[in-house]
């Protein structure tokens, strides 16, 4: 590895970044997520932290441009130069520019924005190019066959730690998961409501706007991510989500469409219309859903009614919809989300959460919607 001549570096560890504009090649969420993940790569091996600004001057200003764009290094059209960035310092220093004559993608085809962003942000932090062909700071662009396998090389880690050291031991490890400062809604806000909740392979995903919290009951860890950082093709502001464990698939709903997601992959053939499940045309969207693995039935909640879907026969059952309050006494408000844990159903409605015992057929507790967030 090498550092810039005279080894310029940031004299602070809490840095700010701002995405000044966007490329038309990708959804904004995808750009947000690529940059966020690229910064996280460097954050994980240094004491540095990055918080996002949405206006004004940030340490690292990220922008897309073509040709002449106000510095002395004009871009050169498609191919050749993909991007460039400036070493740490004031003004243009620290900034990263991406050539919008490239075809920016989230996949391995075209020019992957995440991979180039990791490289350029390495420059923004003070790394120069590396002669190590395995290093992300090697000057020539190399795509990956499997982006999930991306790792910094030891050369990259040695380089950045020569400037900033490793994640310092004396940084107080937050006993509670510290919400990222750019979190749209503080997770411990008592007014927090949720869009959708689903289990996923023993964990629980709590969806809100463009993000989701991921809770592991095993480790009690709570992570916070952009939906697009895991599933770039999924929309934000979801309506409902549920897991069918026998299929190892989470079904995600928005409007009159739904997607099947297995692990990190959105399954082929989606989105599909919700009416393929047997809903009448009058149903434009669903509010919440949950699948009971023992009974092999899935319950869809729409306003004050619910439908039951037979997972074995793959069809909606006759005799539905029924009134929710009749079969789930005490659940008499519009539902935002629902999931099952420890034998209870947890219905979310605004900032409240109803714990429902399906055997006793009654609400056993009323909680805050964010009661799972260790607040």
């Amino acid at each position, binding site marked *: 590895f*090498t550092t810039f001549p005279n080894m310029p570096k940031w004299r602070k560890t809490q840095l700010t970044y701002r995405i000044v504009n966007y490329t038309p090649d990708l959804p904004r969420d995808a750009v947000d997520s690529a940059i966020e993940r690229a910064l996280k790569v460097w954050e994980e091996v240094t004491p540095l932290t990055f918080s996002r600004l949405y206006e004004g001057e940030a340490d690292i200003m990220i922008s897309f441009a073509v040709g002449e764009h106000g510095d002395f290094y004009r871009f050169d059209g498609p191919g050749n130069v993909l991007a460039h960035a400036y070493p740490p310092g004031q003004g243009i220093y620290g900034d990263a520019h991406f050539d919008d004559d490239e075809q920016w993608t989230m996949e391995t085809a075209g020019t992957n924005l995440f991979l180039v962003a990791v490289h350029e942000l390495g420059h923004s932090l003070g790394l120069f190019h590396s002669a190590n062909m395995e290093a992300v700071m090697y000057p*020539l662009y190399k795509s990956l066959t499997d982006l999930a396998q991306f790792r910094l090389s030891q050369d990259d880690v040695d380089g950045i730690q020569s400037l900033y050291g490793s994640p310092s031991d004396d940084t107080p490890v937050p006993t509670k998961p510290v919400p990222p400062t750019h979190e749209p809604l503080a997770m411990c806000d008592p007014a927090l409501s949720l869009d959708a909740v689903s289990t996923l392979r023993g964990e629980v995903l709590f969806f809100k706007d463009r993000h989701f919290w991921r809770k592991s009951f095993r480790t009690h860890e709570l992570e916070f991510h952009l939906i697009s950082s895991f599933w770039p093709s999924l929309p934000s502001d979801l309506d409902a989500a549920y897991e069918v464990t026998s299929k190892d698939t989470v079904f995600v709903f928005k409007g009159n469409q739904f997607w099947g997601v297995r692990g990190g992959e959105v399954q082929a053939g989606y989105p599909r219309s919700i009416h393929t499940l047997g809903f009448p045309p009058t149903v434009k969207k669903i509010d919440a859903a949950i699948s009971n693995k023992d009974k092999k039935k899935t319950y869809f909640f729409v306003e004050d009614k619910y439908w039951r879907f037979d997972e074995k026969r793959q069809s909606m059952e006759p005799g539905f919809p029924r009134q929710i309050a009749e079969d789930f006494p005490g659940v008499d408000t519009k539902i935002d989300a629902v999931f099952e844990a420890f034998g209870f159903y947890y219905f979310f409605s605004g900032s409240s959460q109803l714990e429902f015992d399906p055997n006793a057929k009654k609400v056993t507790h009323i909680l805050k919607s964010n009661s799972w967030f260790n607040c």
Partner: protein
Amino acid sequence: AYPLDGAARGQDTSMELVQQYLENYYNLPKDAKQFVRRRDSGPVVKKIREMQKFLGLEVTGKLDSDTMEVIHKPRCGIPDVGD
């Protein structure tokens, strides 16, 4: 035998490309004379060697096909050697 015009022109284009690449990324001075008496020395040949070494190519000092291929590859716009 002298190379046909076309070939000469092609060679000139490659040479210009290489010269530009070396100026952009390897600090070759803009007015570097292309070749001096001894064909295996001179600033350009030295820079070609430096580039080949940095990018992990066989260090020949010549514009072989591997070197020409690398010069056309997409890359970062920051120089490989600094000042």
